[in-house]
């Protein structure tokens, strides 16, 4: 079971709520995905208005809402958005996004760290979206982040986990859950991230813009489960050289001939 900030999640697939053709398609896709955590952009949703399209489509009781600070260009803006989100939703969960470049929407490491430090002190459960930088991940967890969310590749590009060698280090070093976010364009990408040992993945575009978003959501759910099971059952490693399948019993080659 995945635990973030003492909350347990059966599903390791988180969904974004943007880019769907309608709120009803979104709701059906989310149901099909069995996900329990959805991120919503404060700029798009009226968190305190039950008649809001998205809020109407999703029951607050069934999902953990993860308001995000999409659109924030620096720490100060992100902090203001976070407080607005908490005031509207009553929840302290926060996906921190600080993206000064509106073209690539890549996260700003310096401002993200500053905002995390402040928001943790303000009592938020902070899940920062970040570039796949292992040192930054360590500093964010030291600052009190509840999880870290490194990107697989630039958001919306469907390129998969291009940052895998860095994500691998982040996973190896982390004391908090690692959620691979952004760039996951196909169920195989999600499975790959999970096989590497990611604790969860966050998917949006690949499901929202699929020909059949509901079926695609189901495919992602299966891929995430398969990847997780593969990871916990211990994958065999790819090796450059053949390795003998049975050892030479008791035979020490010249390497160890010095032993008494």
């Amino acid at each position, binding site marked *: 079971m995945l635990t973030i900030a003492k909350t347990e999640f059966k599903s390791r697939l988180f969904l974004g709520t943007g880019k769907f053709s309608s709120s009803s398609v979104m709701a059906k896709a989310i149901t099909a995905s069995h996900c329990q955590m959805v991120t919503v952009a404060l700029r798009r949703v009226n968190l305190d208005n039950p008649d809001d399209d998205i809020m109407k489509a999703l029951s607050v009781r069934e999902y953990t809402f993860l308001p995000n600070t999409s659109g924030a260009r620096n720490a100060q803006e992100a902090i203001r958005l976070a407080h607005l989100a908490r005031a509207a939703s009553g929840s302290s969960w926060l996906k921190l996004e600080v993206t000064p470049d509106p073209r690539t929407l890549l996260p700003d490491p310096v401002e993200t760290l500053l905002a995390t430090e402040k928001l943790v002190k303000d009592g938020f459960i902070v899940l920062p979206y970040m570039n796949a930088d292992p040192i930054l991940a360590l500093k964010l967890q*030291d600052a009190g982040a509840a999880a870290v969310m490194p990107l697989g590749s630039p958001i919306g590009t469907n390129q998969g986990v291009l940052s895998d060698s860095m994500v691998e280090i982040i996973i190896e070093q982390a004391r908090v859950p690692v959620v691979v976010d952004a760039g996951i364009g196909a169920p195989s990408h999600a499975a790959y991230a999970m096989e590497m040992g990611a604790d969860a993945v966050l998917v949006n575009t690949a499901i929202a813009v699929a020909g059949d978003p509901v079926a695609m959501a189901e495919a992602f759910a299966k891929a995430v489960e398969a990847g997780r099971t593969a990871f916990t059952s211990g994958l065999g*490693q790819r*090796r450059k050289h053949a*390795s003998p399948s049975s050892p030479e019993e008791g035979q*020490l080659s010249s*390497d*160890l001939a*010095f032993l008494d």
Partner: protein
Amino acid sequence: MQVLPPLKRDSYPQILHSWTDMYKSPDFNQLSTKVKSATVADVEHALTSDRLSLADLAALLSPAADPYLQQMATRSSEITLARFGKTTQLYAPVYLSNYCTNICAYCGFSADNHIKRKCLTLDEAEREALILHERGFQHILLVSGEAESALDVTYMEAIAKRLRNKFAAVSIEIQPMSREHYHRLFLAGITAVAVYQETYNRALYKEVHLSGKKRDYDYRLETPARAAQAGMREIGIGALLGLGDWRTEGLALGNHLQWLRKTFWSTAFTVSFPRMRPATGSFEPLVNVSERNLSQLIFALRLFDHDVGLIVSTREEARYRDGMLGLGPTRYSAGSCTAPGGYGDSDADAEQFSVGDHRSLDDVCSIIRAKGFDPVCKDWDSEFQSSQVTD
């Protein structure tokens, strides 16, 4: 946790802002069960994995892995070469004092042993260190028994300040201290702290540590974390081989190491493998640890942690140390004398343990070179070390 290099004494409280939950060592019997239950399939899985879990480490330490020693050596050698290159670091200990307030069943310095006690004056200690300096050492380890009355933080600060301009690195292996004291020593020029748990078996720990401060298992277990928090660049841990089951001690060490690494990610770590040798007091090792066993432990930890420094001291014989060059260990002591004042006065007695490799630094360097490796005596900088202090 990142440990920022402190600049001023005043900045100390800020470094402590994110002190997290302290390390709890898992139950020794449970660890032992894990080690014993590993199968050949588990060993083969561990041998083909790049990123080893604690379960993989348990497998490599298990009896099931005994026949795989050669495969483990090959893999360990590959990893060590890739990470550390064709180098072996060298250091020598300076024994400052053999006063000790603990009674430990296995130790030559034990308070109830009738040996000649000596604590070097600062001048004597400096002279001893300078002898090593002349012999070519740039890294020294200051060692003492555990007696604050003989040797306290003020003494250590004073000796560190005398030596820091002359040596690239000065490490300590003395009684456990508070964070505040470690921090003072760091500012004075000490860069590394070694403190061994001796055994991770809590019950056995109580049996062999009969009296004194060292009886407190948890305080000792928390010591590496306190030293890391105080800003030390490197922390050494270890278990005394000959007390508890070495396989289980290895798994406990790996567990401790993993926690330390994750918590203090900007600190470097080393593991030492002190294998019990005859000492005054005629304590017979409780378990026999053979050279094959010791090698398996070293290879297993190397496969588990590619970056950890692995230290083999002169407790081991020359033949063994020469054989192990390049297979996993990264640092050797050389030309060691384990009695206080022993470098200047070759008649000094009351040593902590007797040495297995009596060769000089030059002789050890020659062997290292003959094996195609570079003996490295300098691995830090004395200028840097003394210039960071602002008080």
